[in-house]
């Protein structure tokens, strides 16, 4: 049975299309994450699923049921907002029981459901408090609790952790994962933070300009990006990109001239001909000092993180910051010129307009 399915969904504000023909599916019980830079339409898409925005075209199905023109409350969704949107004049209990009251649930049923949710979220001791007496993390848990008691088919999260500090964010991320396992409901989560997307998602949908750039598991997107945008967006620090030109074919790929050297790229299909302009991408952890081959770069500084360090360097052309990772090495390279290279399997090639050359 399906969870949430979007078929050719469109949304226009006046003459501006903010969502352009999006089709995707989040299978039942899975954790789907919409990720992308601000203004990519991810929140709009979530709000369309919730019914808070009208749909200009296409079909939205929840659990196989067409809900495109259904009232928000009848879609079987519950939403957790970035600002929590708790009712400040009501206690935690009343906040969580609010939807049940509206649905005319009996007192005993409301009490049972709220207590069950409070148990899961460790809020039992706070049920009588007003939201203003709670910490940020607790408020966010109340907002989640309010969603849980409705027993929705789909949970929608709109950047729920953005207002929390870094430490709490990591903790809440783990709690959300645990909660998803425990409840097993379909969840859709919107974030601009690719780390959140990577850690939470079963499926990530990368959006840009109202179009899904690529969908897949976190590691698929990381290991096998379809285009330069996805390659650059997923992964932290971001992938390094270098302008290059194909010099020759090699066994199983091609050699691309970059800066003052060259990198070999593994290509499955037919490699582009000699002289073709390309953009080459290498992730920081795949790039490192080599004895021969590669290209040179002058080390500017490094971010020492203890276990590993990210070294920032400038290539001879002066264009862009080339970052590579080093692990377990204490020796500093600052000021030195190093030769950097990577194995062909870990080098990606893109056409100048960003499409992956496989």
């Amino acid at each position, binding site marked *: 049975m399906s969870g949430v399915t979007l078929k050719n969904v469109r949304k226009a504000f006046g003459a501006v299309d903010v969502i352009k023909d999006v089709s995707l599916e989040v299978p039942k019980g899975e954790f789907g994450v919409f990720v992308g830079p601000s203004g990519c339409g991810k929140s709009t898409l979530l709000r369309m699923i919730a019914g808070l925005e009208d749909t200009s075209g296409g079909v939205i199905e929840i659990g196989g049921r067409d809900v495109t023109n259904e009232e928000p409350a009848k879609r079987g969704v519950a939403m957790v907002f970035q*600002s929590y949107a708790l*009712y*400040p004049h009501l206690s935690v209990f009343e906040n969580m029981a609010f939807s049940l009251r*509206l649905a005319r649930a009996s007192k005993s049923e409301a009490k049972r459901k709220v207590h069950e949710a409070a148990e899961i979220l460790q809020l039992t001791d706070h049920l009588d408090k007003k939201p203003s007496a709670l910490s940020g993390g607790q408020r966010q848990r109340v907002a989640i609790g309010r969603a849980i008691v409705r027993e929705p088919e789909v949970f929608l999260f709109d950047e729920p952790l953005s207002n929390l500090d870094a430490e709490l964010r990591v903790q809440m991320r783990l709690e959300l994962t645990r909660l998803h396992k425990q409840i097993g409901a379909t969840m859709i989560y919107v974030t601009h933070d690719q780390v959140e997307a990577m850690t939470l998602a079963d499926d990530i949908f990368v959006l840009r300009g109202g179009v899904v750039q690529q969908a897949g598991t976190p590691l698929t997107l990381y290991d096998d990006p379809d285009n330069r945008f996805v390659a650059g967006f997923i992964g932290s620090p971001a992938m390094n990109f270098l302008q290059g030109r194909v010099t020759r074919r090699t066994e199983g790929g091609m050699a691309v001239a970059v800066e003052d050297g060259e990198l070999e790229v593994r290509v499955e299909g037919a490699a582009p001909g000699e002289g073709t302009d390309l953009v080459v991408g290498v992730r920081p952890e795949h790039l490192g000092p080599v004895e021969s081959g590669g290209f040179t770069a002058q080390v500017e500084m490094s971010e020492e993180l203890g276990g590993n360090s990210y070294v920032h360097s400038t290539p001879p052309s002066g264009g862009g910051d080339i970052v590579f990772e080093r692990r377990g090495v204490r020796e500093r390279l600052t000021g030195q010129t190093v030769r950097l290279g990577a194995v062909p399997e870990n080098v990606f090639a893109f056409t100048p307009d960003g499409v992956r050359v496989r």
Partner: protein
Amino acid sequence: MTTTRKIENTVLTAITLVAGAIWIFPIYWAFVTSIRTESRVVSESAGLWPDELNLSSYVDALFNTQLINWYINSIATAVITTAVVLVTGMMCAYAISQMRFPGRRLLYGVVLASFMVPTQALVVSQFILMNDMGFINSWAGIILPQLIVPVVIIVYKQFFDAVPKEMKEAVVLDGGGDYTLLFKVYLPLNWGITTALGIITFIMTWNQFFWPFLVVTTEDMMTIPVGITQVNDAFGVAYARIMSVALLAAAPVVIAYLIFQKKVTEAVMISSGVKG
């Protein structure tokens, strides 16, 4: 505390005390006058201090005038006006603030414009209208023209506008409609401002003189401020009696303010963002 600080405090306290004394003096004087006999009030030897305790003016005011009727009229018209003004004002503000319908801006413009028309300019047409409807000398006649209080709509709208959009969306997702939103969320969220607006409207209506004076011609339908003028007429210049009626007239408003004083202060604090 430094010496300069001490002197500053003493000076400030002194100024406050003097200001307070100036403010309280008319009320004190009204009280002193009201417990004197009429002859004592006008005698040359009457000093600043209370030298008599004569309650006859109060007895007269209560039993020889229609004061009880005036009380009933004042309380009824003020309470009904306040309740209707709050309910209609809040609903109108909700519609203008939260609902999307053609003419919304125009409606708000009309509300704002009505704010700028002085009551006196409308009096003649309102009087003719009330007369045509047969509401002269009735509560309806006193109340109806006073129900237009645009400031209530404007204040409510400002507060409703400030409620985060997510709060509304949360209610919509929870299955609530406009009534749930208004009465279960927006209203409790703005309880302080409702209290403040209620008190302000009540006092305004209670003190209203001009309109009730025009629309009521029989003594038994008068409100207290209008009634006071009758005391003057019926007994000549009866200072003690006028003062006692004036004090009795002010009493409910003073009591109401004392009871809700904390709420009013709270509302002002909430509205100025001191307390969230």
